[in-house]
């Protein structure tokens, strides 16, 4: 970790001449009598994106964003200002603006200290992923994806592919003396295709990535994504109208875990529960799921898209048990909400960038494996839907109503998967949907690294996962009555 701190300081502080004593002084200005907490978040991020369509990499872009966000917290009040200049005068002004939230008081001296004696495990490499492959190879990688997709089936009419790499350096200094850095890589490859058969036209898309270098995208992996995108599109060419109404739903493993993210995860974020605005507020210890259900949020999985060595407040991430054998166990916390609720921060304090305030956010949220063979689960269903791919979801935290949108689904009739049906929205009620989970599979999978979660306009990368799961009664929003 100390090596990461040195790297971050040389990237962010050195060009502007900032040093640790400067920050000590800044904090003594920030921390008055009424200030419970204050922090300064430095960030340098660069991103590169390449995209292909019509067989050609036609465009590419590069961006650099750097700045500092300064926050002062007094009770439930937060003052926040940010600057895209890193010089001391800009910092002092931002600190003044943030500080104005609390009554003026005595300056308080602060001495920052790197988190000594406590090494954070490094969950990913510090190497800038933009430098892990020559530019011509990035172009070739996308051309290969295109070729793989077209070779899979002659009905492929359009292929679009994109490759994004991000190098994110963050440095958090806290009023309690913490000085923590993290260097976070992220890569993402996405392939989408359109297939045409007579009058019908359908799309499919696949991809993945995580906190890796670009060498993560091996030839095999690229082919796998390309073939998966084509397979999905071809399935949808055959799909008939989806049914409408309440029925048994079997969810496939992996990405369908977006159910947990929407139905359970958001409602268990600390801010909503401190304010009492979540359908889960005040329900710790209550039974909210069948005994087969254990759900965790885990930021510590190496190289996962949703993972962080430390969160954006410098707290080490961990595995937090949300639901254990059906009983609601815990919330996800940042420092602000944890303090106000008298709880421990759980390493879930995240922000989109220096220009945004941190808040409790998920990392990788998934359900642990159960005992059933997935085949056994499907064969138990007399009539229902088997949904294996989703395009996303949304939740109303207060009423608990959530949706998630199936992009690949099948009818299950007499215990057999019979025919594909068109995409449809599934809708349910967060606090009771898991009380209808009657079978949990033994095939836990995590998603391929594609999730982005939005909350209050802030986007952060996340992961989800689950085993195959049978839910007895969920509303399917098809058109067939």
């Amino acid at each position: 970790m100390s090596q990461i701190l040195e790297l971050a300081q040389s990237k962010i502080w050195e060009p502007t001449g900032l040093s640790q004593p400067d920050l000590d002084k800044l904090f003594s200005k920030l921390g008055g009598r009424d200030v419970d907490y204050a922090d300064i978040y430095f960030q340098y991020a660069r991103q590169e994106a390449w995209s292909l369509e019509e067989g050609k990499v036609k465009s590419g872009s590069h961006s650099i964003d750097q700045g500092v966000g300064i926050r002062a917290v007094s009770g439930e009040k937060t003052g926040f200002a940010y600057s895209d200049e890193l010089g001391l005068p800009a910092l002092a002004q931002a600190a003044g603006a943030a500080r104005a939230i609390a009554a003026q008081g005595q300056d308080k001296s602060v001495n920052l200290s790197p988190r000594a004696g406590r090494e954070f495990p490094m969950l990913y490499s510090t190497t800038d992923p933009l430098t892990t492959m020559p530019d011509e190879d990035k172009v070739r990688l996308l051309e290969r994806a295109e070729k793989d997709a077209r070779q899979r089936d002659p009905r492929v009419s359009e292929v679009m592919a994109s490759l994004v790499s991000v190098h994110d350096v963050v440095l958090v200094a806290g009023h309690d003396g913490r000085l923590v850095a993290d260097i976070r890589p992220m890569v993402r490859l996405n392939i989408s295709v359109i297939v045409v058969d007579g009058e019908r036209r359908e799309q499919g898309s696949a991809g993945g990535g995580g906190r890796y270098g670009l060498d993560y995208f091996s030839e095999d992996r690229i082919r796998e994504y390309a073939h998966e995108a084509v397979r999905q599109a071809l399935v949808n060419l055959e799909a008939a109208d989806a049914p409408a109404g309440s029925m048994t739903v079997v969810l496939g493993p992996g990405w369908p875990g977006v159910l947990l993210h929407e139905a359970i995860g958001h409602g268990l974020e600390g801010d909503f529960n401190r304010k009492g605005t979540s359908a889960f507020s005040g329900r710790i210890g209550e039974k909210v799921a069948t005994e087969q259900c254990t759900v965790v949020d885990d930021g510590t999985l190496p190289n996962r898209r949703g993972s962080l060595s430390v969160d954006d407040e410098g707290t080490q991430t961990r595995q937090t048990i949300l639901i254990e054998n059906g009983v609601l166990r815990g919330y996800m916390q940042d420092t602000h909400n944890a303090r106000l609720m008298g709880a421990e921060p759980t390493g879930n304090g995240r922000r989109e960038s220096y220009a945004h305030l941190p808040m409790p956010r998920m990392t990788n949220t998934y359900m642990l494996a159960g005992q059933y063979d997935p085949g056994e689960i499907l064969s138990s269903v007399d009539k229902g839907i088997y949904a294996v791919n989703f395009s996303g979801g949304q939740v109303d935290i207060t009423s608990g109503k959530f949706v998630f949108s199936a992009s690949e689904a099948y009818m299950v009739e007499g215990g057999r998967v019979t025919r594909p049906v068109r995409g449809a929205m599934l809708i349910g009620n967060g606090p009771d949907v898991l009380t209808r989970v009657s079978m949990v599979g033994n095939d836990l999978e995590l998603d391929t690294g594609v999730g982005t979660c939005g909350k209050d306009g802030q986007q952060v990368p996340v992961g989800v996962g689950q085993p195959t799961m049978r839910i007895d009664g969920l509303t399917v929003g098809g058109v067939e009555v």
Partner: protein
Amino acid sequence: MSEIVAPGEHTVGEGVVQDQEKLAELASRVLATAKRMGADSGETAVSRSQGFSVSVRMGEVETIEHNRDKSLVVTVYFGRKTGSASTSDFNAEAIEDSVRAACTIAKYTAVDDCAGLADADRMATEIRDLDIDHPWELTVEQAIDMARECEDAARSFDNRISNSEGATVFTHRGTEVYANTHGFAGGTSGTRHSVSCAVIGEQDNVMQRDYWYTSDRDFHELESAAAVGRSAASRTIRRLGARRVKTTQCPVIYEAPVAASLLSHFVSAVRGSAIYRKASFLLDRLGEPVFADDITVSEYPHLPKATGSANYDGEGVATQTRDIVQAGILNNYVLDSYSARKLGLETTGNAGGVRNLCIRPGKLGLEDMIREMGTGLLVTELIGAGVNNVTGDYSRGVAGFWIEGGQIQHPVEEVTIAGNLKDMFKRIVEVGADVDTRGNYRSGSILLDRLTVAGD
């Protein structure tokens, strides 16, 4: 360059106008740098903005956020090859690095016959006063008072209002300069102010939340803070006691604030990039009926004070008032110069999207429409993005009200509505006179004669 002013001394707008000249200077330096590095042509957009927001929750200040952003985007062309880059750092060195990064990318991108600036003869020459710049001399203290007044009005509206997500007052001013190597350079300054409120009601241990907001370029046009609070509260209260309905097919009214979403689905389907990629459910429908035959959808880019108003698009091309759909017939697509070249058509001045898209309103108010519908679902909230742009398949979660005998019977939640947009656009039987003018898409309430509602 990036001073942050302490609250109290802070008013939005100071120093921004002189900025237009500074930004224009910066833009011409960027283009000169691109030329020096060998680019044949280039374009750049440079912007700065500042503002603040305050939130009050349960009567107490919750957050004070000061925003101050800047960004520079540059695109270079070497013949028919292109690259682009952006930075938030306006130092000479950082700008030089960004232009170089764009030039490096252009070395590796493929030759693309349609790439390049918009044609020089399409550059805007007429610059109208669009009346979109109304700086608000608002102090943080005044904003706090206003937010408090708003939230108080909501919390005291009804004793079933049990909790609050707070009220927020926001004010913002931005300046942007766009320039390209045709010699076009344009500068625009504009403001945006809003007051919003979200509160929670409780009945029989079940909570519901709803919100309201007012938003305008001119703060004089905003609804009063107290009116916003009362609307938020009454919208929350009317949702208490919501339940599901039986799965059925019935008429559906989209209340004006959610009806505009149908227009955005339409635009996604007629956007040039969706058409040339053949990723649209309205492919090859030019000149054909795509809406019911009394529907007109028009773009009004020069409306005074409107959200989307602009004299030129993201490529400097003059924007134009036009009917995209006339008597139900699709007249034209929504094109920038790249997608126009791909399709062998002319740009419609829509680089960056449509501007003030309106569906022509009818004469009825929402209550008349509810009476006309008789039995069906009134939708007031949509959740989830269940729209397939290639097939038009549509399925979204909704909350709203069950209507019978032309009267509201009870609130509804946890149901979906589904259909196919190709068919849904033709099933529009009424567009209300109650146009919501807050956003870039403007619509009255919309009545469709039939959709599938999935519930119990």
